[in-house]
């Protein structure tokens, strides 16, 4: 650590103000009097809902945007006065990590080393460490564009570390990355801070990541709600956290949906077959004595230690309008016995792209009205499987029945009975919300009164009425996702496919999303979903873990979790189980798991 900079904090903001003026629209205040301090040698996390101003704050700190008010000093330098002096000493990884895809791994590193004036002698010492840390050593000559998502993130991080920066700014370094790669990235960062005294400031939408940092800053609508050690923030939910065990015959998801509407509950999530709740008040205050049916009375409550996420929800509860996502009501509930049999049956399904086998003889079944989760690392073959189920790709072999129809022989009729929400936002940006819905209703063949009724239903059920005339490009992230889902449900499909629907969404939006999914499933719609958030797998009735085109494990969340049970981890989380299953399979196959990215 440089003694000259030791005295000043790594970053200090006082009443920082930033707004964006847009054409023909009211200006948006991104940062509204933000004051915060980042200390040297610490790992500080910046968390907050979408649109809180996280990326804007990092860009201001990196000298990429001018501020509109307040003070911002990085390494004791006023960023606005001398951005270059700051840029000479810090490193920054933007959300799209700035790799040159047509340069190789080594060439990308060399470029950044040259730009930072790193000498050959320093490189000889530093590169081996970086390659060991990121496990990119064997891939030095591979083009960056041909790396997997997790490897790209690691290379992006390595490029920021070609020399020891005095402050490292990372914008969502783990977004869209599978749990295995996320864990590796997290270990690299913790190692750098602990063993090398690096100062890191990162923003993330994973609250469990923030929990492992030395300090956390919670940003909401451009203001700081709280800053301090994550344990302190977790303590905001002290004596309010409990686990409820569902009664026999009751699903955790059903209980959770019931609890979400409870006036004295801030948050409820399925957790290991039970439901974890955070109460609005400590202890038993607020449990209606005269309500024998109150789930908090009728179920066994077990007090648990608060987590950072619980404190975060308590904080947001104080300021944010509680997302009153009315559980969705389907106009014509799908009767579970309408057709009999499974909604989706896959047997020995294969998909080859040339010599590459993307999906390798997989089999599974999805029952009607259940939520089925398809989990797996990046490149496991999830999206390819999805596309075959939706009739967008022709399988190379195997059997595939969707809603009772063979997709290969009757794709049109099968497709009319399923809805698909793609990984990337696939609506028309320049069209308004209503115009998008009208277009999709027309594409599904809806007409006249029925069409009007369905569009009305979509606007109402997804709470889009207020923004009906906004173009979909200018919608905030959470609304976009709702619109995409509304469009996919216009023709009342029996089966809904959702490919990473919650990627990049914040905790609040994800809660609202899963409420709707639960309600849909309760009304008989079959939901098949992929996700990188392992906690979300708890909402599913059944899950399958895929890797390298094969199904490694299938079962209920409880059964999957049990796979990782051992003496050291008696109560494994879904993430533990996922990592255990994938690593075991990769070891068993006797190959370097990282080769999967090839």
């Amino acid at each position, binding site marked *: *650590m*440089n003694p000259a900079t030791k005295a000043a904090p790594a970053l200090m903001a006082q009443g920082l103000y930033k707004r964006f003026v847009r054409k023909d629209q009211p200006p948006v205040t991104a940062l509204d009097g933000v004051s915060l301090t980042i200390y040297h040698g610490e790992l500080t996390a910046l968390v907050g809902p979408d649109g809180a101003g996280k990326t804007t704050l990092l*860009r201001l700190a*990196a*000298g*990429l*945007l*001018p501020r509109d008010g307040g003070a911002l000093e990085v390494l004791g330098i006023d960023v606005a006065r001398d*951005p*270059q*002096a700051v*840029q*000479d*000493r*810090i*490193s*920054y*990884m*933007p*959300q*799209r*990590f*700035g*790799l*040159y*895809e*047509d*340069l190789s791994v080594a*060439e990308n590193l*060399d*470029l*950044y080393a*040259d*730009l*930072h*004036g*790193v000498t050959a002698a*320093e490189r000889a*010492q*530093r590169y081996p*460490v970086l390659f*060991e*840390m990121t496990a990119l050593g064997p891939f030095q000559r591979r*083009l960056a564009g041909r790396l997997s998502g997790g490897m790209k993130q690691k290379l*992006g991080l390595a*490029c920021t570390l070609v*020399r*020891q920066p005095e402050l490292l*700014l990372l914008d969502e370094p783990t977004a869209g990355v599978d749990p295995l790669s996320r864990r590796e990235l997290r270990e690299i960062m913790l*190692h750098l801070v602990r*063993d*090398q005294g690096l100062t890191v400031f990162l923003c993330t939408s994973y609250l469990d990541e923030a929990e492992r940092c030395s300090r956390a800053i919670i940003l909401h609508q451009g203001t700081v709600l709280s800053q301090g050690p994550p344990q302190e923030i977790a303590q905001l939910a002290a004596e309010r956290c409990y686990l409820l065990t569902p009664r026999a015959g009751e699903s955790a998801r059903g209980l959770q949906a019931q609890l979400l509407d409870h006036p004295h509950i801030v948050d409820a999530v399925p957790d290991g077959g039970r439901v974890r709740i955070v109460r609005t008040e400590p202890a038993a205050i607020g449990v209606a004595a005269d309500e024998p049916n109150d789930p908090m009375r009728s179920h066994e409550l077990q007090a648990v230690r608060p987590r950072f996420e619980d404190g975060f929800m308590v904080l947001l509860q104080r300021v944010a309008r509680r997302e009153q996502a009315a559980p969705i009501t389907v106009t014509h509930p799908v009767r579970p016995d309408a057709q009999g049999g499974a909604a989706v049956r896959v047997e020995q399904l294969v998909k080859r792209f040339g010599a590459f086998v993307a999906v390798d003889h997989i089999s599974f079944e999805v029952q009607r009205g259940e939520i089925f989760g398809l989990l797996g690392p990046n490149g496991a073959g999830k999206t390819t499987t999805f596309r075959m189920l939706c009739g967008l790709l022709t399988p190379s072999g195997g059997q595939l029945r969707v809603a009772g129809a063979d997709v290969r022989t009757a794709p049109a009729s099968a497709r009319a009975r399923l809805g698909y929400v793609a990984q990337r936002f696939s609506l028309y940006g320049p069209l308004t919300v209503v115009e998008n819905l009208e277009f999709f209703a027309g594409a599904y063949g809806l007409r006249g009164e029925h069409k009007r009724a369905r569009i009305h239903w979509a606007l109402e059920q997804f709470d889009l009425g207020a923004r009906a005339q906004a173009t979909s490009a200018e919608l905030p992230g959470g609304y976009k996702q709702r619109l995409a889902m509304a469009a996919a449900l216009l023709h009342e499909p029996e089966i809904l496919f959702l490919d990473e629907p919650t990627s990049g969404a914040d905790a609040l939006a994800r809660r609202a999303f899963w409420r709707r999914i639960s309600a849909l499933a309760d009304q008989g719609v079959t939901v098949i979903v992929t996700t990188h958030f392992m906690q979300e797998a708890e909402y599913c009735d059944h899950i399958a873990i895929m890797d390298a085109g094969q199904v490694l494990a299938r079962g209920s969340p409880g059964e999957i979790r049990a796979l990782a049970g051992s003496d050291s981890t008696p109560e494994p989380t879904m993430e533990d189980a996922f990592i255990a299953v994938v690593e075991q399979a990769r070891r068993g196959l006797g190959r370097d798991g990282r080769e999967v990215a090839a």
Partner: protein
Amino acid sequence: MSTVSIVRTDGDGGAGADATHRKLQRLRALLWKEARQVVRDPSSIAIGVILPLILILLFGFGLSLDVKDVPIAVVIEQPSSEASALAASFQLSSYFHPQLLHALVPAEQRLMSGRVDGIVVIPNDFSARLGSGDARLQLVLRGSDANSARIIEGYVEGAVATWSGQLAEAGQTRIQNGTAGPVQLQTRLWFNEADDSRYFLVPGLVVLVMTLIGALLTSMVMAREWERGTLEALLVTPVRSGEILLGKTVPYFLLALMGFVLCALSAEFLFHVPLRGSLWVLFGASMLYTLVALGIGLLISSAVKSQLVASQLTMLATFMPAFMLSGFLFDLRSMPAAVRLVTYVLPARYYVALLQSVFLAGDVWSVIIPDALVLALMAAVLALASRAVMRKTLV
């Protein structure tokens, strides 16, 4: 895992020489990066080498203002030896593809249906009047294409003049036609002796190609960095904005010069356009113009940040004016004064004038020096403007 020593690389740490060394190291890194991307990305090669080749072949062979093998109808109302001799001279000319008829009506039908572009009527009193020195011919042309009509008129007059000249030499009576009278007009076309429109089209073509590849190359590559988000990472390094611009200019300058060499070689060896000025003036002027074109591309892409918009804007702002308003195709002096004023800000105008004089006239310093100065000034202004626009911010 071994620990890593802390490497301090703040810019103010070293002496002046050290700072220069770092600057050169950064510049070298950017140049290498760009060169590798050019080699690996087929689109740059396509714009720099394939596009010029296609344009040269397409325009060079396809675009010609010369009129050859004009279909005309020659109506001989009353056969005579003189009328047949005149008709034969049309048949022998490489400019015409005559059809011999004996009445005006079928000829008119052919003109209307577009099978012929003109009618030459040799009236029935032609031979008689020729004797008295007062012979007349009728020429009917389709005026809907006034340009072609004028050219054909000239050809017909030329053909008749040649024929009557031969008559005069043979001591016979002459046609009352003006040209074959006592005063003989000897036409000499300077700079384009063969009266071949390629002579002035090919230098103009070089201008088009250089405009397109120069501006398109840089506008695409800079906008690409914005689109892919690589620039955001690049900005937060010790690199200076001038270094980024220089790193973009040099590789594409060299690539555009390759395109120029292709153009010059094809002008010389494919289209046989003479080079009457000196080679170094040709190169010097082209390098200046390339800098201007690259500057326009850099300025556009620094401002719009999207490949699609940048490429469309580049076409609109550089290619179209270079095509229409540079004097390559249309004479600047025949334009309305307001439009002519606009052409003065177009760099292509000066480059067209430079190339036409170097190729066809020689080193005419009174043209070369002022035009080269204007181009140099434009390059300097564009460099400064790019530098001003390309600040290290995201807004």
